[in-house]
Each structure stands twice: as C-alpha cells, then as structure tokens.
C-alpha cells in the first residue's frame, strides 16, 4: 500500500504522477487541465466513479467563469470539500468518488465529492415480506441506510460510529446505537471485536458476522440480519446496536436472542391476540421442523405402541412394500427437498415454477407409486419443510432443517431416548450460547417473567405516559 507519510510536493506534475503511479496507471483515471487565474490546475478523477455532469456543472463551469482572485473552494458548488496534503487521503477520496484539484505551486489538494448516484431505489425486501407495515428496505448504500434509520428515530442520542475494514477493500462499516438506551456490556464487546477485525477484504455483512460472532461452530445465528429499517429501528429502541456494512442491504443486529428470530414486524402491526397466536405457531414450527421426522422414525422403528389402532393400521398398510428402512427414506427425501429448494432459488421465476411442479408433483407422486417411499413419509417430510419455511429469518429455518439430521440419526439408533437426549444436547448448547455476552435464550433461561410476555406472545401495548425513552 501507499506509504502514509508521503506528502504532496509543490510541483503539480509531480503530484499528478504520484497519484497515477499510486493507481498503477489505471486507464480509468482521467485528468483535465484547467487554467484558474492564470495558474494551471489539474482535475483528476476516476472515470467510473464520478458523475461527469456534476463535475461539469459544479466544478468546471464556476472555475472557468471566475474572473476574480480567490481560492477554488470559494467558487465550486459542492456542499463539502476536503483539503489535504497527504497522498493517502487523496487516493482514498478518489476511490470514494471524489475528484482531486491540484494547482501549480500548491502542496495541498482540494478533494471534492462527485460520486455517481448509480443506485438501487428503496424497495421492499424480497425475502422479508410482510402483510401489514412499512414497505421500504435497506439498499446497498450505507448513507441511505443510515438515513432510513435516522428518519425513524429522530433523536439526538442516536450515535453513528464509522470504521473502515478490510485492508484491500476499505469497506465502510457503521455502528449505530442509541446512547441513552443501549446496553453497555454487549456494546463494548461488539466495539472491541469490530476493532480487532483484521482482514484483507470485507464484502458483506455475512463476512463480518462470521468474524465477530461468539461461536462460529453453532448452527444458530448470533446476530440478526435484516433488510427492514423498521425492524432495525425497533431493535435500536430496545437497546440493541446495529452494524451496517457498505454494499450490503443486510444490517446486523446484536445482541440477539433466539426468540427474536421468530418475530416479525407483522406481530406489532396486527391485533395483539393474532400476533401472539402466530408467534406461538412459529415457535411450534421450530420444534416441528427439527423433530417431526425423528419422531416418525422412532415410532415406526421402535415404539409403534404409541400409535392408537386407527393410525397404526393406516401407517402399517402404507409401509408394507417399502424396500428402504424409514431412516434412509427420511434422509433421502430430506436431501431431495434440499435439492429442489436449491434448484428453484437460482432459477428465474418462470423456470422455478416448473421445478416446483416437476419436483413436487411429478417426483412426489412417482416416487410413491414406484414404491420407493411411503405416502406417510412424504407427508412427514412435506410438513417438516413447511414448518422450517415458517421461520421469518431464512437462516433459522435452514438451520432447523440441518439440525433435523442428527436428531433423525439419534432416533434411528435409540428411538425416543435418542430424540430426548439429542434435544437435551441442543438445549444445553442453546443455554451455553451467548450473543455478545448476553444469554441466547433470554428471557426463558435465565428466566424473567416480564420478558416472556414479549418473546413467546405479544402482549397489548400500553399507553405509558410515565416512561419516556
């Protein structure tokens, strides 16, 4: 990299050469010569990063029209500018879409931001749809994202801390929190961990998450990534902090608990009884997604006694001519399901529909008719899949489906005992897990009765004039 001690010199040509060599003579580094008050100047910019119309209108035009003796910053029409004597700053600003104005005989450079505004408009996030509530979403531009938060939380104690991570990519990372409300302990841990990050590249929030989370072996995400500004804002108001990475529409919320992954903004926007009902349904869906195939296997391979007569005979008739043991049946169908899902995600939607029909209807029916898999197993796997897709955060649903595999294995070897012990291990793991020093299962373990009100169910919002945040 560039030696940070290099200062600019008094000769303009030398300066320009220095910048050009810092950029390894790249082709899109353009320069334009100007004459301002008889001093020759040079404007340097990276062609691909700047808006040329802005340069023409706001910089070149005023400079050329100016007849009086004055410094350039008084003439240009930019809202902000930086004057620097260091090469490193110059290069950094050029990379962020500024243009640099060198003047002969001046050892400083004027840096003017003229970044091109080629961005996605604010759209509703594709994978976090809601029925009722705000329909805007974060985009790839970090400033726009901070704007979306600021617009929701109009409070002077909303703090923004900015870091630059990745020695090659120089990605801008912002940490947002509300100073009056934030939980200091986890925030300090988070700050320490972000400061300790030392990598070459930082492309997305997912990469950052892996670097700073507590336990990267766990299947449970320890930071919540969301594209919804309303969600991020509501977590800020709960005293959590939000990390944004430039170039990713997903922001990271921490510290987070298990139950947050099963909440959506919909709960808060609908009637509280309905909201509570759906929260309970979602929690139930998690249990179902991880344990339903295992329970089925344990029942048909070990404890068929637990089935009452009617169901027992129905299942017995279905599985009569199935050559595979239920364990392999379940594993195979789970894998088929994952394949279908993977295939459908990447394809354009018209083809994805075909995959759905071929996969779901044709394979599903044919595999049963051919006698490879029983109808009951199809029902079980389909229910499991649906239950896992209920999770409002995609990571959690996929995690649940993966967790189902070891539990299926345990059920195949030890029946109910295996399931119970596997779930116990899972529960112990959850109890041990912490998100930035906060217990992952709060408020259930450790138990706070008050907290439960808002994690499992959603209670009525009270009109509280005494408490002010």
């Amino acid at each position, binding site marked *: 990299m560039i030696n940070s001690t290099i200062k600019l010199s008094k000769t303009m040509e030398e300066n320009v050469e220095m910048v050009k060599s810092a950029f390894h003579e790249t082709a899109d580094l353009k320069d334009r010569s100007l004459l301002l008050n008889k001093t020759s100047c040079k404007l340097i910019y990276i062609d691909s990063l700047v808006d040329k119309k802005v340069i023409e209108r706001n910089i070149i035009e005023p400079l050329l029209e100016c007849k009086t003796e004055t410094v350039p910053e008084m003439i240009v029409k930019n809202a902000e500018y930086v004057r620097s004597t260091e090469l490193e700053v110059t290069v950094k600003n050029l990379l962020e879409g500024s243009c640099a104005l060198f003047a002969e005989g001046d050892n400083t450079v004027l840096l003017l931001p003229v970044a091109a505004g080629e961005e996605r408009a604010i759209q509703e996030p594709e994978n976090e749809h809601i029925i009722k509530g705000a329909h805007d979403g974060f985009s790839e531009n970090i400033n726009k994202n901070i704007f979306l938060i600021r617009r929701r939380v109009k409070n002077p104690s909303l703090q923004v801390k900015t870091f630059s991570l990745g020695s090659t990519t120089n990605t801008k990372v912002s940490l947002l929190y509300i100073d009056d409300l934030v939980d200091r302990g986890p925030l300090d841990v988070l700050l320490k961990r972000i400061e300790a990050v030392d990598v070459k590249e930082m492309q997305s929030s997912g990469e950052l998450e892996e670097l700073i989370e507590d336990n990267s072996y766990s299947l449970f995400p320890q930071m919540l990534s969301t594209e919804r500004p309303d969600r991020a804002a509501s977590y800020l108001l709960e005293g959590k902090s939000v990390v944004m990475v430039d170039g990713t529409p997903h922001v990271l919320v921490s510290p987070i608990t298990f139950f947050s992954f099963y909440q959506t903004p919909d709960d808060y926007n609908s009637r509280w009884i309905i909201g509570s009902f759906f929260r309970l349904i979602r929690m139930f869906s998690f249990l179902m997604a991880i344990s339903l195939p295992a329970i089925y296997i344990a029942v*048909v391979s070990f404890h068929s006694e637990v089935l009452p007569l009617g169901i027992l005979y129905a299942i017995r008739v279905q599985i009569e001519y199935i050559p595979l043991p*239920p364990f392999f049946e379940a594993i195979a169908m789970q894998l088929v399901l994952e394949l279908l899902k993977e295939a459908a995600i990447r394809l354009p939607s018209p083809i994805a529909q075909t995959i759905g029909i071929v996969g779901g209807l044709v394979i599903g029916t044919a595999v049963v008719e051919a006698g490879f898999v029983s109808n009951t197993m199809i029902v079980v796997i389909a229910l499991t899949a649906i239950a896992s897709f209920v999770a409002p955060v995609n990571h959690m649903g996929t995690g649940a489906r993966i967790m189902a595999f070891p539990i299926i294995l345990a059920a195949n070897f030890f029946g109910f005992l295996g399931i119970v012990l596997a779930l116990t291990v899972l529960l112990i793991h959850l109890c041990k897990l912490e998100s930035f020093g906060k217990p992952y299962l709060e408020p259930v373990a450790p138990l706070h009765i008050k907290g439960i009100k808002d994690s499992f169910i959603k209670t009525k919002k009270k009109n509280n004039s005494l408490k002010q945040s």
Partner: protein
Amino acid sequence: MRKILFIFFSSFLMAGCWDQNQLKDTRLVNGISFDTAEEPDKILGTVRAINVRSAGGGKFEVQDEFYFSENETVGQLEMDLQNKVSGRMNAGKAFIIIVGEEMAKTKGINSLLEPIIRSTRGYISSRIIICEGKGNDILSLKQNESPIVFEVDNLLLGGAKESYIPTETTFTVWNKITDNSIDVILPFIKKDNQNNLRLAGSALFKSDKFTGKTLTIGQTALLLTLRGDNKSRTKVIIESAELSQALTLAIENSKIKTDVVKENGKVTCHIKADLQARILSYYDGESPMNIKHLNKLSSKELTRKVKELTKILVEANSDALGIAKELSTKYPESWNPETWKHEYQQVEFKPEVNVEILGTYNLH
C-alpha cells in the same frame, strides 16, 4: 471435545441398533382367544393377525389370518405361535381377548392376563370378553374376510355406549381381581346359528374364575346403575299386570346409597336408589297416563328386579357390588377375608328403589 464427539458417533455407527423393531416387519395381532384344549392342562390359543396385500397401483387389500396352537402356558403359546406366523408377531395392539366359557371356569383368567400385564409391549387397555362355547369358534369366523375382531369391538362399543355391558379393560380386570374386595363382571357374547355374534349380557366372576352364571342385558344395566358405572342413560323395561304393554324408561340421574351394616355377625346391605327417568314408550289404550301411579309402579317393579339380581349374585357367590370393600373400610378390625367367603352367602340385601318420572318427551 471434538475427539469425544468422533468416538461418540463412530462407536454407534459401528455397533448398530439393538432395539430396532420395524413396524414394517411386524404382523399385528388384533385378537386373541384362550380355550381349554382337548388334552387336559393345555390351553388352546388362537390369534387373528392382519395381513396386507398389494392390489396394485398403490392400493392395498387388508386380510386377516388365523393361527392357533395348543400348549401349557401362555408363554409357550406365544413362542409356538411366533413360529407359525410369518413375520414378527406383535401382540402389542391385540385389543380383544376372548376367553372361552370352560377356560374361564376351570383355569381362571389371571394366569392368562399375567404375561400381558408384565410385558412392556402388552396392550393393557384391551377388552376381555367371555364367550359361550369356544373363543376359537368366534375368532375362526369369516376367515380371509373382514377382520372379525373389529366386529366384536364395535359390538362392545355399542353395548358400552348404552351401558348394557361393563367397560372393563385388561388392566382394570387385573387390578380388581388382585384386590379381592370386588368381583368383576365381564361382557358375555354368543354366536347364533347364522354365525352372527350378539351380546348376551355379562358373566359373573368369583375372584378370577367364571362362576357359570350370567346376567342378561337388562340385569347388567341395572347392576351397572347400582354400581354407579353407567356411562349414559340406562334403559329399563317395566312389566306389570296393570299395564297392557311394557313401559320403557330411560334413567337420567341416579343417586345410589349403599349402606352395609354388620350387627351380631350378620351383614345387611341396604341399597337405596333414587332414580330420575323419562318415559321412552308407553301405550295404554284405555286409561290415560298417571305419572304418580307409574312412579309407584316402576319403583315396585325395579325393587323386585334388584332383589332378583342380588339373589343371582349371592347364588353365584360373586360380590359384584363390592360389599367386601365397604365392609373392610367400615369395620377394619373385624374384617377377615377368609371367613368372608362364607359370610357372603348370608348377606341380606334390602333394596329400595324410588323412581321419579321427570318427563315424557313429545307425547303426553
């Protein structure tokens, strides 16, 4: 930690699964019967097992198979039958146990139930019934056709719903037999000439042996009412010379007070039953209905019926009303189970039934 996990998984993958018992490989037994065999001291055990056959195109046909064996104990029977049945025999859902008349009289049912109660797989909510003749004859009906056991089960279901027969399961029967303070009554079924099954009332037991005496459907219903075991409205028929046609009542509420008194070594049992009923059918061409009169008439008739019932119970030496239980808790100091066997014969029953007709439904 990871090393432990590795050992953990590899050891189990290598060792395999000991207890796997695939439902697919099991042959589900749905009915069992026990009878006396030709040879003395042997038991004739019969099972009906379900057999699934593919009918093509993903459709299946369910048929029943029939196996029997003669052996000395139930354990031996099971071993022998296992070798006859194709696939693993699983009696974990055998929901009907039929015991032949002779078997119940001579050997008793306790030794038959013991293996079911002991085993972890046994189905102790199964129903036990006593049949006229041999249980084998009933289980062998309609072979290769619809499972006969389901027919029996439906028969029992209907009977129990209307409180015509007692709702005893293997567990409750065993629990009561070991208790020795109340005797069980079990449903009694018959097969007629056309090979149709019917409920014929209940079989009276003394301890675990069938006494040979049976109660009719009506008497069983009355007994269940007196024990307070009636599930729904019990129907009773009142016949009297004063009525041109028998009167049918449905008992809606019953308040039974059994009072056992022991004086000078003599046990008297006062049964006071207050029944509230509605008229289900009544036809008399001449006189209009007089509720008060009918109350009196049916009280008298029912008291007579209860007397008749208790007489049968005493004759059969079956303490189906649980007098022993009352006595042992009321007079624990003078309670002696040994002498009770003789004392029961001397128990005097003093029933008193009061019927109050509440309503007559649509017609007056």
